[in-house]
């Protein structure tokens, strides 16, 4: 088993097969924890309002009953814009993470510090954008 897996693993930068399973386990637990924590936190912290819209089956800010040719509220545009920003962020993070620990690029290995720092800077700039959007009241509906 180990003999078969070794060359492949070495390429990926892992020392043994167990390391992969441990990592997968951590990832699984983190994902599960994230989902559960979000549900619980929003249950505790979220405002519990009642009303026709809140009790409807599909609550998205748009009346689920009626004509489908209705115009969307223009405030969705701001949500779409913020979504676009963070959607594109992932576009850069995925190539970064997939090549970060790849031992096939010795020059990448040598540059771990700058590589990590550059992504931190990237995220900080996005954070500033987020704070700005917050300050401008983009996340307030009313």
């Amino acid at each position, binding site marked *: 088993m180990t003999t078969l897996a070794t060359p492949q693993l070495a390429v990926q930068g892992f020392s043994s097969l167990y390391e992969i399973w441990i990592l997968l386990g951590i990832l699984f637990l983190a994902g599960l924890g994230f989902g559960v924590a979000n549900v619980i936190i929003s249950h505790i912290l979220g405002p519990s309002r009642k009303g026709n819209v809140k009790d409807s089956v599909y609550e998205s800010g748009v009346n689920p009953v009626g004509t489908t040719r209705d115009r969307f509220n223009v405030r969705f545009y701001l949500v*779409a*814009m913020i979504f676009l920003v963070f*959607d594109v962020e992932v576009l850069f993070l995925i190539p970064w993470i997939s090549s970060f620990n790849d031992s096939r690029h010795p020059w990448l290995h040598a540059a771990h510090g700058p590589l990590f720092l550059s992504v931190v800077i990237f995220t900080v700039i996005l954070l500033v954008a987020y704070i700005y959007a917050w300050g401008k009241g983009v996340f307030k509906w009313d």
Partner: protein
Amino acid sequence: MQTFGNPMLYHYLALGAALFTLGLIGFMVRRNMIMIFLSTEIMFQGIAINLIAFSRYWQNADGQSFVIFILTVAAAEASLALGLVVMLFRRRQTLNVDTWSEMQG
């Protein structure tokens, strides 16, 4: 001999150029601002196809990383275009570009 399953580089380039040209035509012919914007997006997609095909041809990733940056900039432009369009629609209640020609000379 060329078969169906083995497209040549120029097939991809032709597709890219065709998309680019379609976008260009759309840009000039369409009168609705959102359609005009979508036409520029189509042009960007044509360029992306060019870059990816060349990237495959040269066996390096320069073209692919270029495409990622193009997509980013296109997203930034899309959000900007939406903002402008919303602003203009509030003022004029129409998105026809022909109504926007106050300045002449």
